[in-house]
């Protein structure tokens, strides 16, 4: 049947070649940051999300409400279209495929689809409901660079109700349990200390409690979650080569006195070692701690810099629960004094055991 094809149609404009096929172009564009928002019910997560969606900040931000662990389903993504401030709804299908022989979790595939469908996306917020332990979600979103994904995990934000937190801490003084909120604080890169207008006194003390648990976290105070978005987005907390984080670690000093609590609370410790260490030994040391659970310590996060034998590169170390990465970041500067420094956040941490076992990596 040739009839349709006999007369040629009118040729149409050929757009410039710049629009190359998606497979190759996606790797040229820098990936879209994903921020995970945690926090207990009533802390102000929804307030933060609404603020971000409705504020005129000129950024195009998608908010996805995700019940992590609910594999099958369709997620609603709300997108602030930027300048106009118009809200657009998109539906993101979570493919219920065989997740296991696929390297990327269906959530990652759904986020990549969202990024691909939109011609421009500045950031993605993932609001999780009542997620007590963010670690499984982090291990799904912290993708290998090799995968050249169009998304990257930017940071974990925990919203805390300052008033409720105060109450929890006071109760804690009379019991052996620790406030549940500390678990989320331990994994957070940013804590938004919300509802400060309801707590008249002693915000410093609240912040100190937060920093005792997680010395690396940035605390942002807020009323009704009005925060500077530039402060909470694009933290690049999982970027191994992020220079400001590297500097933070170089400058990090043990000035935060570990009040030598040998209770079961969450705390931050710092391992320090001047002499160079062997990379292979550091890896085995980490794997014993994180994978083989050979001690009673429960390690949530590590961030550190390493001075490796026969290398002029600063190596950065990062771990979330059992997933870890050690990569060369840049050359040591002439003026820098070379050293190893590992900040460890977790429960039941024993600085002597950590320090001594790490020193074994020297020879």
């Amino acid at each position, binding site marked *: 049947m040739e009839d349709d094809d006999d007369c040629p149609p009118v040729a149409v404009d050929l757009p410039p070649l710049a629009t190359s096929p998606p497979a190759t172009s996606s790797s040229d564009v820098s990936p879209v940051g994903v921020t995970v928002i945690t926090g207990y019910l009533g802390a102000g997560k929804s307030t933060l999300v609404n603020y971000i969606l409705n504020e005129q900040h000129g950024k195009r931000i998608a908010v996805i409400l995700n019940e992590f662990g609910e594999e099958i389903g369709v997620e609603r993504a709300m997108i602030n279209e930027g300048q106009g401030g118009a809200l657009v709804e998109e539906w993101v299908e979570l493919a219920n495929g065989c997740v296991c022989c696929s390297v990327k979790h269906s959530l990652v595939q759904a986020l990549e689809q969202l990024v691909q469908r939109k011609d421009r996306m500045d950031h993605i917020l993932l609001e999780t409901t009542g997620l007590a332990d963010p670690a499984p979600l982090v291990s799904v979103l912290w993708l290998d660079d090799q995968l050249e994904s169009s998304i990257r995990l930017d940071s974990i934000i925990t919203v805390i109700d300052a008033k409720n937190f105060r109450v929890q801490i006071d109760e804690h003084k009379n019991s052996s349990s620790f406030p549940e909120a500390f678990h989320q604080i331990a994994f957070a890169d940013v804590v938004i200390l919300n509802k400060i207008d309801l707590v008249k006194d002693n915000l410093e003390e609240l912040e100190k409690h937060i920093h005792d648990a997680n010395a690396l976290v940035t605390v942002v105070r807020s009323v009704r979650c009005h925060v500077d978005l530039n402060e909470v987005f694009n933290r690049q907390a999982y970027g191994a080569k992020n220079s400001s984080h590297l500097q933070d670690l170089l400058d990090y000093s043990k000035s935060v006195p570990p009040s030598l609590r040998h209770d079961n609370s969450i705390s931050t410790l710092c391992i320090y070692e001047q002499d160079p260490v062997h990379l292979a030994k550091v890896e085995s040391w980490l*794997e014993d701690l994180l994978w083989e659970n050979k001690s009673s310590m429960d390690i949530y996060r590590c961030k550190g810099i390493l001075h490796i034998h026969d290398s002029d590169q600063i190596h950065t170390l990062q771990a979330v629960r059992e997933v870890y*990465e050690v990569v060369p970041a840049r050359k040591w500067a002439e003026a820098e004094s070379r050293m190893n420094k590992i900040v460890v956040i977790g429960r039941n941490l024993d600085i002597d055991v950590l320090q001594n076992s790490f020193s074994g990596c020297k020879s």
Partner: protein
Amino acid sequence: MEKGGSESSLPCARCGKPAQLQCPKCVELKLPRENAAFCTQDCFRTAWSSHKSVHPKPNALASQQFPEGWRYCLKRGRVRSSQLPRFDWTGPLRPYPISPMRVVPDEIEKPDWALDGIPKIEPDSDLQKRVEIKSPELIERMRETCRIAREVLDAAARVIKPGITTDEIDRVVHEETIARGGYPSPLNYHFFPKSCCTSVNEIICHGIPDARKLEDGDIVNVDVTVYYKGVHGDLNETYFVGNVDEASKQLVRCTYECLEKAIAIVKPGVRFREVGEIINRHASMSGLSVVKSYCGHGIGELFHCAPNIPHYSRNKAVGIMKAGQTFTIEPMINAGVWNDRLWPDDWTAVTADGKRSAQFEHTLLVTDTGCEVLTARLPSSPDVFPWLKP
């Protein structure tokens, strides 16, 4: 963005002058721009009578007269269509209609997805997070099942030749599996419509057996998993169809070697992430690339579970091998770029550049001193790989 990339540098498909226009039909069909670019309306009109042959005729495939009930597979197997879906196909291969679902006799023990397509135990099992150390009794069952899976794959290998369809391969796999009392694990797994995967040429993995006849010069991977006595055994091999060009032979042989070299390092104490380093090193030395989107997996009473074993280098896979663990290693190696795309059936993974891809897979058991290849070749296995000849 490349400098000067904003300026169209495509030549006219007819005369070679810089092109400003393109064929609207090619745009509609998402065909490659290279053959669709023209300098002027005149040149396009002149070229039309020969150019139009690049448009696939809508009823060209339908006119081949497929048997009643054969349809194109869509939506992960949940939808069938009588029309070839539209897609910017990455290479010359196209899907063909698939036959109706095959039946498994009642007396055969079935996994929990057999009836409704949804695995229930697998997704929520704690074995997705923890790598199981198998009991000797479980290991013995794995040996039996893996041996059956090997026999089934060998039976499929024996029928491969130009002119037979991948559906015919599926029929052999299906019948040989149930003849041994097993269930073909892929059948209805997340709605997968067939009893094995057949991946031809640019298909990386999860190709659906269909009405396409194998052609002289094709390569085809057959991926078999058998469920028997409550456990799964999983393996695959890539075969030559008739006379295959030298580049394809190299690709298939290198992929075979990648798996061999990976198996050679398996023993207690080795990190799972080392597997990717070995495979990547061998593939890159031959100028080939490693598929990153699909990985090896734990296997046993579950079809897919922990650990995840990526085949690419610099991965953050967690864990160390221990005696008593069982898992697959199944490198997919591409002649061109590593990137993959998914066909509209939502199963078939193809190379993004349309170049060929090969794969080999074994189910392995970590032993005290190394590993046992549970799906190893048998003395009776067909002699199809020239490099294995004495």
